[in-house]
């Protein structure tokens, strides 16, 4: 029944079923009713971890060292307990930052570095090649074996059997076509492939069922349960050591390292990242996967040992333990079971190849080829409107190349190793991502250069200690380097680097590569500096759980720098906004605003600038509307208006307060100045008054002493002295009266009795009462009065005082005999002017204002005895000013003076009376 055509037909039938499932799932996804959005499918898709390695290789490994296959599954079981922290964080970050692959993740974390993304891609592709070759080897071997049914013939090594090479080539080509058809029909949004995930989940069921079936058959069909198999194996001398395998030297250390290695692999294998992170529909699916996926691994490993021991017991030497799963049912001619196992093997291999090459091709396309093409300006890729067909072509090409490279690796190095050993080389390669990846997820200080250095160092050590010996062992080139070390230095032997011997090759490589990797990553990170983008990305990645949805870093994808500038321009004015953005770009080392990325830093910068103008809450809301394209709610608008109006009102108040304060300060200063001036004037006045008072007092005292000391002085002399004393006393009295008068006037305490007064009468009275003085000095006085003199409202006695003072001054300064004083009254405008003109010595220009000040008399006071007190004109000016008029003098030295004053007219012109000229 198991003719070749049945096998081929069965294989193709199975593949066709996968396509049907994928097609159905895609259709459901388009209709919005995803079949993969449940925790069971998610857990089953994670089981893509179990490949041909698990299906065929575990038994081979178990037959070799008993428990060596188990850490590969116990490691992930332990790691998954930490997934609640690690993977959830990775999923959250990936969804926020729109991560599409492992390389994308690392590149994005370290400032979106294209170089780093490319390096990760190269390491992933080279590192995964052994793993892909493992699948090719397993599938082509199973083909070879099943085609020989009912005989059991090992394919042997490729040298002896070129058919295996050919088969492997066909398998590689077929898988390439298959993957292309599967994964690159269209470019999915967010690189998610619902159909593929559904098919993978189905494959996981098939391989589990097939393996459990063969396990049950071997354990309970060929043998009589677990006890029987282990019991009989324990009897065999060569198998007894497998009952206590950990007693071997270094076995526990190897176990521990293998556990660590697979803990890292379950996270960093590109296909695991793809299904666990990228294809994750909902975070909560993790809750079930955390226990269901380990349960799957436990189930698929349950019968590994019975099959291994069963095979060792049933077959003579010469049957490869890697084929026991298939050859055991074959040997008992269980055709149906054989076909099921064969299909299970294909499902394990194809599942891995599909997801792995799709993940790798995405990385090659997005992180290696496209960045180069976009930089290659001549191609002008960026200006193309639709790039999807180009993307698909690149991915298809990448899939073909990856599978062909896998085939080449199989040809070059695949034959010398068992399946698990080949796979472990790949595990060690992807483990190199751990420091940069986990460091980037939990340590903000990790830098781009640190990641580059760590990855490069780790990859170089991996290449030297694992890949190089693998090639050498296959006889691809001589073993000299492996046996004698590079340049013949024993310390540089790839498998015993620096003399570290006695360890499993993988363990040895892991120790040295991790030392190099972590050492370079940490030391370069600690000594280097981060760019702004790196810093913001580091914050986004490390603090993803503590960030709220409103953090700037999360707005990055939905806005642009120009949109922010426009926003700022709307509030700060376009010119100011342009200046700010240019300065910001300059501080980031960019030439223009166009190069700015709207990252968290820029958003917080914009927010900060806005906050200075419209308040923090409003700025946040405004930036949020641009960054998240949220409609602005009425509440926010009200808040903004409220806040802005408060700010404006407050600033207005401040401005007013400030102006008031300034005004108050100014008036206080003026008041202070005038107070100081008044103080000075008071001091001057007092000193002047005391001086003036002392002069007559000194005379009085001097004459009194003469009279007192000389009683025999003659009567005429005595009479003359007494006359002088009386005269000086009168002067003293007058002076004191005037001082008191002036003080009254200045303090405003003087009493004023306003009434309608007749100026003509006052002038006549004044001239009349001074006529005796004029006669005594021989000075003529005339009064020229108009026919009618309008009435003025004033204090009669005060006006009289002014007239008398001016007349007595005039007579004092007029020459005797030829003196002539003229008094005129004239109406002009709104007042009446009175002039008192003399023909005396006159007053020089510089003295004209001085004479109105207190105690200032013109003339040399040292040589001439002053004629008056020096207060008369000051008092006159006070009176005239108080009455609302003006007092001034016009004069030329030697030609006389004219003293004039005005008085305002009464509001109602009083009766005017004709007056006779005196």
């Amino acid at each position, binding site marked *: 029944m198991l003719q070749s055509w049945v096998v081929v037909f069965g294989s193709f039938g199975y593949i066709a079923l996968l396509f049907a499932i994928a097609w159905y799932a895609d259709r459901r996804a388009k209709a919005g009713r995803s079949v993969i959005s449940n925790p069971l499918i998610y857990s089953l898709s994670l089981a893509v971890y179990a490949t041909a390695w698990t299906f065929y290789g575990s038994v081979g490994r178990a037959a070799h060292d*008993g*428990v060596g296959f*188990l*850490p590969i599954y*116990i490691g992930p*079981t*332990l790691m*998954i*307990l*930490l997934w*609640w*922290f690690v993977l959830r964080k990775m999923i959250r970050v990936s969804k926020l930052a729109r991560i599409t692959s492992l390389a994308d993740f690392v590149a994005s974390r370290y400032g979106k570095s294209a170089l780093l993304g490319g390096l990760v891609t190269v390491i992933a592709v080279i590192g995964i090649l052994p793993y892909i070759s493992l699948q090719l080897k397993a599938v082509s071997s199973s083909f070879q074996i099943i085609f020989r049914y009912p005989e059991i013939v090992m394919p042997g090594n490729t040298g002896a059997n070129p058919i295996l090479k050919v088969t492997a080539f066909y398998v590689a080509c077929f898988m390439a076509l298959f993957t292309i058809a599967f994964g690159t029909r269209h470019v999915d949004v967010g690189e998610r492939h619902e159909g593929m995930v559904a098919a993978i989940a189905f494959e996981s069921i098939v391989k589990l069922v097939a393996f459990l079936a063969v396990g049950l058959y071997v354990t309970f069909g060929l043998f009589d*349960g*677990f*006890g*029987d198999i*282990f*019991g009989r194996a*324990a009897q065999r001398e060569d198998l007894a050591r497998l*009952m*206590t*395998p*950990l*007693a071997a030297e270094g076995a*526990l250390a190897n*176990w*521990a390292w293998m*556990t660590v290695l697979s803990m890292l692999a379950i996270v960093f294998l590109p296909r695991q990242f793809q299904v666990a992170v990228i294809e994750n529909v909902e975070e909560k699916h993790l*809750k*079930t996967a*955390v*226990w*269901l996926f*380990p*349960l799957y691994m*436990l189930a698929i490993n*349950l019968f590994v*040992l019975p099959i291994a021991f069963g095979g060792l017991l049933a077959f003579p030497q010469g049957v490869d333990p890697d084929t026991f799963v298939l050859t055991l049912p074959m040997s008992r001619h269980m055709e149906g079971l054989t076909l099921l196992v064969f299909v299970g093997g294909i499902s394990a291999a194809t599942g891995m190849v599909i997801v792995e090459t799709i993940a790798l091709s995405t990385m090659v396309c997005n992180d290696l080829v496209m960045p180069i093409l976009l930089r290659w300006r001549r191609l002008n890729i960026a200006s193309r409107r639709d790039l999807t067909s180009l993307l698909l072509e690149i991915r298809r090409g990448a899939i073909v190349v990856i599978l062909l490279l896998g085939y080449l690796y199989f040809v070059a190095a695949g034959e010398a190793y068992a399946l698990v050993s080949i796979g472990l080389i790949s595990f060690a390669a992807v483990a190199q991502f751990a420091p940069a990846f986990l460091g980037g997820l939990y340590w903000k200080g990790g830098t781009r250069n640190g990641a580059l250095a760590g990855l490069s160092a780790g990859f170089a050590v991996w290449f030297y200690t694992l890949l190089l010996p693998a090639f050498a062992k296959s006889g691809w080139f001589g073993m000299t380097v492996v046996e004698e070390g590079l340049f013949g230095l024993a310390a540089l032997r790839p498998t015993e680097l620096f003399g570290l011997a006695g360890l499993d090759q993988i363990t040895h490589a892991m120790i040295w590569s991790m030392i190099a990797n972590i050492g370079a990553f940490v030391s370069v990170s600690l000594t280097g500096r981060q760019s702004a983008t790196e810093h913001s990305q580091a914050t986004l990645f490390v603090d993803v759980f503590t960030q709220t949805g409103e953090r700037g870093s999360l707005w990055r994808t939905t806005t642009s720098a120009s949109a922010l500038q426009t926003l700022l321009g709307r509030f700060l004015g376009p010119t100011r906004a342009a200046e700010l953005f240019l300065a910001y770009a300059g501080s980031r080392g960019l030439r223009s605003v166009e190069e700015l990325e709207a990252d968290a830093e820029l958003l917080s910068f914009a927010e900060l600038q806005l906050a200075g103008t419209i308040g923090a809450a409003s700025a946040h809301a405004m930036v949020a509307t641009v960054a998240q394209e949220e409609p602005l709610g009425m509440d926010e608008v009200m808040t903004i208006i409220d806040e802005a109006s408060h700010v404006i009102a407050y600033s207005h108040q401040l401005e007013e307060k400030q102006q008031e304060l300034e005004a108050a300060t100014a008036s206080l200063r003026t008041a202070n100045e005038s107070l100081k001036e008044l103080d000075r004037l008071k001091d001057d006045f007092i000193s002047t008054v005391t001086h003036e008072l002392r002069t007559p007092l000194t005379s009085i005292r001097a004459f009194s002493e003469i009279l007192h000391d000389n009683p025999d002085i003659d009567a005429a002399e005595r009479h003359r002295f007494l006359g002088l004393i009386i005269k000086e006393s009168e002067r003293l009295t007058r002076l004191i009266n005037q001082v008191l008068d002036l003080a009254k006037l200045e303090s405003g305490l003087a009493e004023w009795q306003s009434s309608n007064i007749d100026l003509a009468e006052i002038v006549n009275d004044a001239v009349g009462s001074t006529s005796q003085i004029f006669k005594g000095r021989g000075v003529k006085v005339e009064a020229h009065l108009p026919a009618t003199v309008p009435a003025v409202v004033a204090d009669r006695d005060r006006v009289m005082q002014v007239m008398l003072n001016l007349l007595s001054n005039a007579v004092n300064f007029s020459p005797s005999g030829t003196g002539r004083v003229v008094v005129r009254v004239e109406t002009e405008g709104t007042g009446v002017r009175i002039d008192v003109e003399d023909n005396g010595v006159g007053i020089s220009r510089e003295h004209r204002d001085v004479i109105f000040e207190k105690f200032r008399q013109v003339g040399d006071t040292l040589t001439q005895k002053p004629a008056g007190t020096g207060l008369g004109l000051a008092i006159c000016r006070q009176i005239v000013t108080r009455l609302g008029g003006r007092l001034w003098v016009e004069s030329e030295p030697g030609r006389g003076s004219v003293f004039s004053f005005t008085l305002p007219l009464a509001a109602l012109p009083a009766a005017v009376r004709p007056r006779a000229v005196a």
Partner: protein
Amino acid sequence: MPKSSRKGPRLVGLFLLGCLFFNYPMLAVANARATVLGVPVLYAYLFAAWALLIVLVAFIMERTE
């Protein structure tokens, strides 16, 4: 909320338990020349410990809402 926040620490606790299960010295102890129901102690121990761990995880994840 208080129940959900207990999930993390409990998982870490299980992780540490798992590290204890699948490491020296437990493995060295289990690596003995004896059988449990005909199965070598080491193999019986490994699968039993593994199964126990999975049951505990399932219990924590499904019971702690």
